[in-house]
């Protein structure tokens, strides 16, 4: 024991120093000492020394595989950094602790991973996560954790900097906690200089909204349709609520139960929120939408809310989905518009990566003009014109008005481009708005 604790202390000193080193090392923001930020071939060694390895995207989050198909709840992929465990918002309902009742209708998986809070502020180090602060009455304090203690591991997994990669405490907690929010932690107690195993009962870090999605025409949705339910910030639509969205595969006629466990830290008491839902086919084409999103009251969270969705055709006849017109949440924008605009401007269809990001762009309530302006302002389009501003203006006018630019027009719009500090997107938006 003595031996171990001595090492522990020494480790601790090292952790302190490591911190200052880390501060220095940030200059590279690189991947630690073993990794080279710049892809490079080693001379003749035959190795492809890619380097950006750890920066490469990689779907690493656990995913509930749907046995019937590829789609599963994507909420599970939510991970990571959150700044504190306090509920700053007004949505303070007690989270629904029983998610098993949502083990669902046809083809859905609904094991919702929760956000759990340990109630500590830590600095990652080579020997573990060094505790800096402990939240009063929080889970960590309840098991006696104090500042300067080191969390060495969670359920057998080392935390802190492990081989120069961060193994995040929050992430490890979420992966390891059992359904009741318990984890086992190996902790070095600085006061007694002892390593100890402790079982910690975590606090829930999320608030729950539950309900189900129904089809008002009681028809069947096809195999592998996608149900999306999300919390939207009405006041500031760009301000996303972490874990505020669930997406799952479904088929049949429902109703399809859902549960959202959102992060209350992202809820601002000054903003208004609503609950929205939609169903698309597997290509993203809207099948059903909500005629009127449900306002989320400040007094309490909707539980067991029934969201009755209307057929897309019905909604269209109600004029809700007019392409280019104001769209409440953008739900129901047909991906076809994306293909049209891509063809019109770039002469090609979007790649599947682009499709996802641009669909989300439309889903944020952006109009077709926004879409056109952003695509014509893109680096790809500018590259096509030899990265030449004059050719850009000429081509923009030709594309949108079908005629050649006059010398005056050219000068005027080049001037605008200057005024906008070269921001082609803004110039294009202005041009499109003038054309209207």
């Amino acid at each position: 024991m003595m031996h171990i604790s001595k090492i522990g202390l020494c480790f601790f000193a090292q952790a302190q120093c490591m911190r200052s080193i880390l501060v220095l090392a940030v200059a590279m923001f690189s991947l630690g000492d073993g990794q080279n930020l710049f892809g490079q071939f080693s001379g003749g060694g035959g190795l492809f020394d890619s380097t950006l390895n750890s920066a490469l995207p990689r779907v690493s989050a656990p995913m509930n595989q749907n046995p019937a198909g590829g789609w599963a709840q994507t909420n599970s992929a939510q991970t990571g950094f959150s700044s504190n465990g306090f509920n700053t918002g007004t949505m303070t309902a007690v989270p629904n602790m029983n998610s098993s009742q949502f083990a669902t209708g046809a083809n859905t998986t609904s094991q919702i991973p929760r956000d759990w809070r340990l109630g500590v502020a830590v600095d990652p180090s080579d020997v573990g996560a060094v505790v800096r602060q402990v939240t009063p009455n929080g889970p960590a304090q309840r098991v006696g954790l104090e500042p300067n203690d080191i969390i060495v591991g969670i359920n057998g997994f080392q935390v802190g900097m492990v081989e120069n990669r961060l193994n995040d405490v929050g992430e490890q907690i979420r992966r390891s906690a059992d359904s009741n929010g318990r984890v086992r932690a190996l902790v070095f107690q600085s006061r007694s200089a002892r390593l100890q195993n402790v079982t910690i009962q975590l606090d829930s870090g999320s608030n729950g909204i539950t309900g189900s999605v129904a089809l008002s025409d009681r028809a069947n949705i096809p195999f592998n349709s996608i149900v999306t339910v999300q919390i939207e910030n009405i006041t500031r639509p760009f301000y996303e609520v972490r874990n505020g969205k669930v997406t799952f595969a479904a088929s049949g006629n429902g109703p399809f139960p859902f549960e959202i466990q959102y992060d209350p830290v992202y809820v601002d008491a000054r903003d208004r929120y609503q609950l929205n839902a939609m169903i698309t086919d597997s290509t993203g084409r809207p099948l059903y939408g909500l005629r009127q999103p449900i306002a989320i009251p400040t007094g309490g969270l909707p539980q067991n809310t029934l969201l009755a969705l209307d057929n897309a055709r019905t909604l269209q006849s109600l004029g809700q989905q007019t392409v280019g017109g104001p769209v409440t949440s953008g739900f129901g924008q047909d991906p076809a518009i994306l293909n049209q605009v891509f063809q019109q401007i770039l002469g090609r269809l979007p790649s599947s990566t682009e499709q996802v990001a641009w669909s989300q762009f439309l889903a944020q309530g952006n109009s077709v003009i926004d879409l056109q302006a952003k695509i014509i302002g893109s680096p790809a389009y500018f590259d096509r014109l030899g990265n030449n501003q004059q050719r850009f203006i000429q081509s923009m006018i030709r594309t949108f008005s079908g005629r050649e630019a006059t010398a005056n027009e050219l000068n005027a719009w080049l001037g605008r481009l200057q005024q906008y500090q070269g921001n082609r997107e803004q110039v294009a938006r202005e041009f499109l708005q003038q054309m209207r």
Partner: protein
Amino acid sequence: MIRKVEKNIAKNFVTKGLILILSVVSSIGFDKQSFAQEPNTQVGKPSAANAPAANAPSANASVMGSQVDATTVSYQTAGHQLQLMQLLQSIDPYLPSGNIEGKAVLSGSTTMVLLGQTWAQRFKLFHPAVEFARGVDGSDASLEALSQDPNVIAGVSRNVTDAELAKLKAGKCKDPMVVLVALDPMAIYVNENNPIKSLSPEQMQGVFGLGENRQPLISTWGQLGVTGPLANEKIRIHHRSEISGTRSFIQQSLLGGKPLAEPAETHKSNHEICQAIAKDPVGVAVCGFGDRFDGTRAIALELRGQVIDATDANFLAGRYPMVRPLSLVLDRGQLTQDGGLRASILKYILSRDGQREAILAGFFPLNPDFIRQELVQLTGTQTH
């Protein structure tokens, strides 16, 4: 015994510290071992965690890649879209903190300036009191500007060399910091009728670089294993005419800084390069994934016997490593003096919205775990 352990740790610590500092200075902290992993191990454990597209055999993947996916709304495409959605979901949204105000000067390469402006506009939605100004254009010029004025944030769409970092330090940017903000995967393009399937790093070096006698080691398609009418034809290299991020990428990353072979043709844009490749049956060029054009074909990489197609799906699964980094370079000293402005800007860029904007500008997002690591290095203490 204990003393010995302590000593070792101390030694280890010093070495590590040195390497870390070196990596700051040299920016090439080079350790073969860390690259010795097989490409397929980079994918992570093949498990249910991968979306279907990630597990698709390469034959499928190449079908997906060559006919741009939207036309064939296939099952794989759907799986791949899910993969990206999942990736974006794994990146936390931006969480604004406090009243951020002040002025930031964004400067950088053509590519990065545009992306920077978009990020600035989105950031201003959260923090309307912040002002952004556009600095000088070009990677070189903006690094120069940063060395004279530590207020500048320089966007660089190529590698930053150790010499450049040293120069910044010698100037007014005492503590330069390079933050990786997005990725631009690169592909090797040939004419669609060229039968070549893949190129290894050594072959690429042979084609694009110069050998001992100042001549490329590989100059005909036959030397790359192509048989038939093309075998005796000379390889014609197409490049950008001016110094561009793409060209720096080839020189720095593919050739390790060695000189480029003389191109047969030069062009003003990547688009022109691809148009030319579509007409040139013996042409070859390196361009971004997004530059793909009718009549061209992106060929696979061959890494230690593994053939990896240049597809979005392979890149998103972490299998395809040929990528150009997009970074912001700034003075770390400013982080503590600007009331949180720079830290917030970086947090926004590394948020879901910031990474999605990078995709809209034609690039790819970073790995969520890597982002988390960058954020820890940026913000230090974390609350859980």
